[in-house]
């Protein structure tokens, strides 16, 4: 279709959908309503399992199956990206020296930031059942932290710190552990992904049963997966190259 025809079809569709959405919104409860049925069930359920962060309770206890699915989506995308960005015939890895021209102060700041960021990441993972955050957020922080080394201009030390296979294993084993922890609940007769660990005391580090365990597992999976994901893109952007000799297809 020509650009104009495309815009016309889109405009008709968008207008129709906008009208439908307006009708739908007219039937919505007003913004900020105090009626939240699921909330009224989820908060007592979280307290019953001594979980201070109700969102974590929903994520890792009440609706843990969603989070298992989410972890596996991440796993799938990490494998998929690695498969799609695998080196093809004729592609060579460029010998990497430095990641670019970096001033000494940037290097220094990055080196200082690295341990701080790692600590923040670990903290966010460990307290996921008590304070905002958790395995996912902390995991992403950890994965990004490793790549601060690139900012520091140390791509080669980044590569040394990044034997990718290990991270793939971390990710795979952690995702599998999530499912296996779920199967433990099944084996004990309390149901798949049931909260079977001792619940501890409310608002303390050792509370909420399996929630912190699953948080840590998720943190490891996300950190591993995140590193692999970013490494693929870094590898493409600065690592591999190929002389543009392949036949043109256009």
């Amino acid at each position, binding site marked *: 279709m020509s650009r104009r025809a495309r815009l016309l079809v889109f405009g008709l569709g968008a207008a129709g959908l906008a009208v439908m959405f307006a009708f739908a919104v007219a039937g919505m409860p007003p913004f900020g309503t105090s009626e939240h049925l699921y909330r009224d069930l989820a908060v007592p359920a979280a307290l019953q399992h001594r979980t201070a962060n109700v969102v974590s309770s929903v994520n890792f206890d009440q609706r843990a199956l969603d989070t298992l699915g989410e972890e596996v989506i991440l796993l799938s995308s990490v494998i998929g990206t690695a498969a799609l960005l695998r080196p093809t015939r004729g592609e060579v890895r460029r010998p990497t020296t430095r990641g670019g021209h970096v001033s000494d102060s940037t290097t220094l700041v990055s080196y200082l930031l690295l341990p701080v960021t790692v600590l923040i990441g670990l903290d966010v993972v460990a307290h996921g059942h008590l304070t905002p955050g958790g395995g996912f957020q902390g995991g*992403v922080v950890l994965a990004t932290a490793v790549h601060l080394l690139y900012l520091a201009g140390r791509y080669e030390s980044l590569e040394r710190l990044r034997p990718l296979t290990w991270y793939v294993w971390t990710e795979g084993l952690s995702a599998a552990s999530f499912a296996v922890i779920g199967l433990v609940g099944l084996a004990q007769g309390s149901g798949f992904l049931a909260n079977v660990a001792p619940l501890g005391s409310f608002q303390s580090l050792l509370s909420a049963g399996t929630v912190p365990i699953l948080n840590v597992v998720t943190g490891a999976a996300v950190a591993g997966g995140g590193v692999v994901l970013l490494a693929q893109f870094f590898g493409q952007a600065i690592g591999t190259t190929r002389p543009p000799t392949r036949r043109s297809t256009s």
Partner: protein
Amino acid sequence: MSAVLIVVALTLVAIGAAAVVFTPEPARQAVTLSVFGILLTLLFFVLQAPDVALSQLVVGTALVPLMVMLTVHKINRRHR
């Protein structure tokens, strides 16, 4: 008070989205996307969703724009 904050944050997000979409250069888009991520983070904080805000911060303003930037870098390098 919270009503004003919410309206302001929502408006900023609505404008930010248009800004990202209508940024012509992919390299600059990585930056506007990152700013849009911050605006969303702000909105989520105002909506009392610190968990989601934190996620949005690490994913929407760091991870995804970084991947976009690296992709742009890769493609531009091959075209030069």
